[in-house]
């Protein structure tokens, strides 16, 4: 380190620096090989660019296909026709690869300049190069996986929102798919009455569901946590263990069991209530749109309160004992301590998780799909497949799997993004690490 301080940039240095810069921009890795004698790195960068150039024709073809999505060729056998969906995905993948290449290019140029300013002070061995590349090597597998299995699929489905990819007449490989601009958005937002109505109903219920599910579970969990903590019952741990059960049982199982128990005619709940004389006619727990919504929220409370109970218990036990001692000395009652000290701290600490939980519930596929299946059917269900308790994600699933209306499903996915992304960013901006600029 000491040697590097003594090195002062001279006019000659500036000239070489410029040469390194130009060489690195001309061909990736050239600067490393010619001027810096970093052969390993240089050859790696050069190889990347060589591969890129070798595949250039294919890349350009994929980009052209992305734009046209293929031509209809009804005279060819199905196997040989243009498959628009493969073209679309390949196009998106190629765009992703090009983006990665540009990033590598920028890294190589920056690295060349960095190496240049350090090259005077010390020689860098292979082992140290690998050590210095640790951040890149450490991130590469994660970024690669995310790029191909998260980002490309999401970009693909965002793209589909602007095509007519749908059953019956635009399903590859028999037919091609075309870009249609904003047609799908127009159809869903006013253009087609039945779809607009269904969308309005499902979107409203999704937001109500998200809010109710979050609020009930949060306060349900808080109530249980506070009661278990404040009551001096000796068997409180036994109760806590019982209350963890819904959290421990995989939700598919518990939801399917509830579906069976709540069946209007043969379900145990109705038959029990009838047997002990509380009701005389069966309650359509999951058979009537209004009842089914109520049931979904209640069953979700059953399944979801343990999480917040554990969370709030943990957050309460993390409160410093000093605060309680100080309050006791000041003569505060137990109720005052709970209301004025414990609850504000707990709420302050868990507030970001409430927002997280809201986004989780908006996307809570299992809680709806395995309990009610989105049912009961309503007037427009035959056309749109959106039933009484369907939320956006279950509707997307049905549109994709049952109806093959991929274009509308993608519009819904874009909508979820538009609603949830700002919430997530808002949540992030409030965290301490973000405000303190650690990020």
């Amino acid at each position, binding site marked *: 380190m000491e040697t590097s301080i003594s090195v002062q940039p001279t006019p000659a240095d500036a000239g070489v620096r410029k040469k390194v810069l130009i060489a690195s921009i001309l061909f990736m890795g050239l600067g490393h090989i010619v001027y810096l004698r970093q052969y390993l790195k240089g050859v790696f960068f050069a190889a990347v660019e060589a591969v890129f150039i070798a595949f250039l024709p294919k890349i350009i073809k994929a980009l052209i296909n992305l734009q046209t999505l293929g031509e209809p060729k009804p005279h060819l056998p199905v196997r040989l026709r243009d498959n628009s*969906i493969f073209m679309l*995905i390949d196009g998106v993948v190629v765009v992703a690869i090009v983006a990665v290449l540009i990033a590598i290019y920028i890294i190589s140029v920056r690295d060349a300049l960095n190496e240049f300013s350090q090259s005077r002070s010390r020689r860098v061995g292979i082992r140290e190069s690998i*050590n210095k590349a*640790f*951040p890149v090597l450490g*991130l590469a*597998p*994660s*970024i690669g*996986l*995310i790029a191909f*299995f*998260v980002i490309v*699929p*999401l970009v*693909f*489905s965002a793209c*589909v929102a602007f095509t007519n990819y749908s059953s019956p007449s635009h399903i590859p490989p028999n037919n091609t798919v075309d870009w249609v601009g904003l047609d799908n958005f127009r159809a869903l937002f006013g253009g087609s009455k039945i779809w607009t109505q269904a969308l309005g109903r499902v979107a409203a219920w999704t937001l109500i569901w998200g809010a109710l599910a979050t609020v009930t579970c949060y306060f349900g969990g808080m109530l249980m946590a506070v*009661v278990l903590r404040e*009551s001096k*019952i000796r068997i409180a741990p036994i*109760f806590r*263990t019982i*209350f*963890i059960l819904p959290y421990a*049982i995989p*939700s*598919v*199982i*518990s939801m*399917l*069991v509830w579906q069976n*128990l709540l*069946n209007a005619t*043969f379900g*145990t709940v109705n*038959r*029990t209530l009838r*047997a002990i004389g509380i009701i005389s006619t069966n309650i359509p727990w999951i058979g009537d749109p209004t009842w089914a919504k109520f049931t979904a929220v209640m069953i979700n409370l*059953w399944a979801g309160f343990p999480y917040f109970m*554990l*969370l709030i218990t*943990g957050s309460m*036990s993390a409160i410093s004992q000093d605060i309680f001692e100080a309050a006791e000395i000041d003569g505060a009652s137990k109720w005052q301590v709970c209301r004025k000290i414990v609850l504000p701290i707990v709420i302050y*600490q868990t507030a970001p998780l409430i927002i997280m939980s809201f*986004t989780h519930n908006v*996307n809570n*596929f*299992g809680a709806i799909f395995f309990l009610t299946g989105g049912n009961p059917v309503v007037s427009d269900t035959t056309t749109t497949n959106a039933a009484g308790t369907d939320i956006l994600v279950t509707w997307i*699933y049905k549109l*994709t799997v049952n109806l093959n209306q991929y274009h509308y499903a993608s519009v819904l*996915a874009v909508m*979820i*993004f538009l609603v*949830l*992304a700002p919430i997530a*960013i808002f949540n992030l901006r409030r*965290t301490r*690490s973000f405000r303190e600029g650690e*990020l």
Partner: protein
Amino acid sequence: MRARARINLATIIVLVFLTIVALAVLYPVVYIVSAAFTPGSSIALDLVPFGSGFTLEHFRFLFKNTNYPIWFANTLIIAISTSICTVVLASLSAYVFSRFRFTLKRTMMMALLILQIFPSFIGMVAIYVILLRIGGLNTLWGLVLVYVAGNIPYNTWLVKSYLDTIPRSLDEAAIIDGASHFRVYWQIVMPVARPILTFLAIASFTGPWMDFIFPKLVLRSADKQTLALGLFSFVTDKKNQFTTFAAGALLVAVPFIIFFVISQKLLIESLGASAVKE
């Protein structure tokens, strides 16, 4: 005297309240246990649990006439691989995000945050085609790739915020002593981060057990089915073998329940910690 009576009354009210909640929580659990041991395949269960006899025929049926052991083995393989890969990849990237400064870091963290709010099945058509292209359809590793990729965004955040609380002086000292970044990550930071990694391992292990959509999308042949697919087929497919479903579900749920009850303390601590760190 009076004060004491009041405390007793309050205690009784609390006890009654807790008992009612406990009954509501236990209600479906008791019925599923009773259904698993009830003879026949009736969907209309007896009102009184264990009221119509006791049998082990459903368990025998599961192991003799269905592929239950194969489903179980497949699911176990998927869950273990997903858990290991998630912990390794998420901790590596979290360490890099926590300890290094580089261009686009803020943008990348923000992108991860936004990506994690999407349920991954939104892109299922594309995932299907990509797996088709790389030969990952109807394979267990194809499914593992999908799960791991879906797990990384959120868990990188989770582990990163934990690592941020570990003093940097710890690893800086090691670097000055000449340790490589990988050694610092592997031998110094990871052992300190064990609580959050344990939590992550558990969470990503439990996820695949009951996922339904992706196995349905990726796995086709009978020897590649998972538990969720197999169990679901008992109650749909017009078969309605609810009692068999209950028996199979019970076998999955019991280890989970035992595990969660034992690790209660760890759960409370790590959940509480994740709240404090925000």
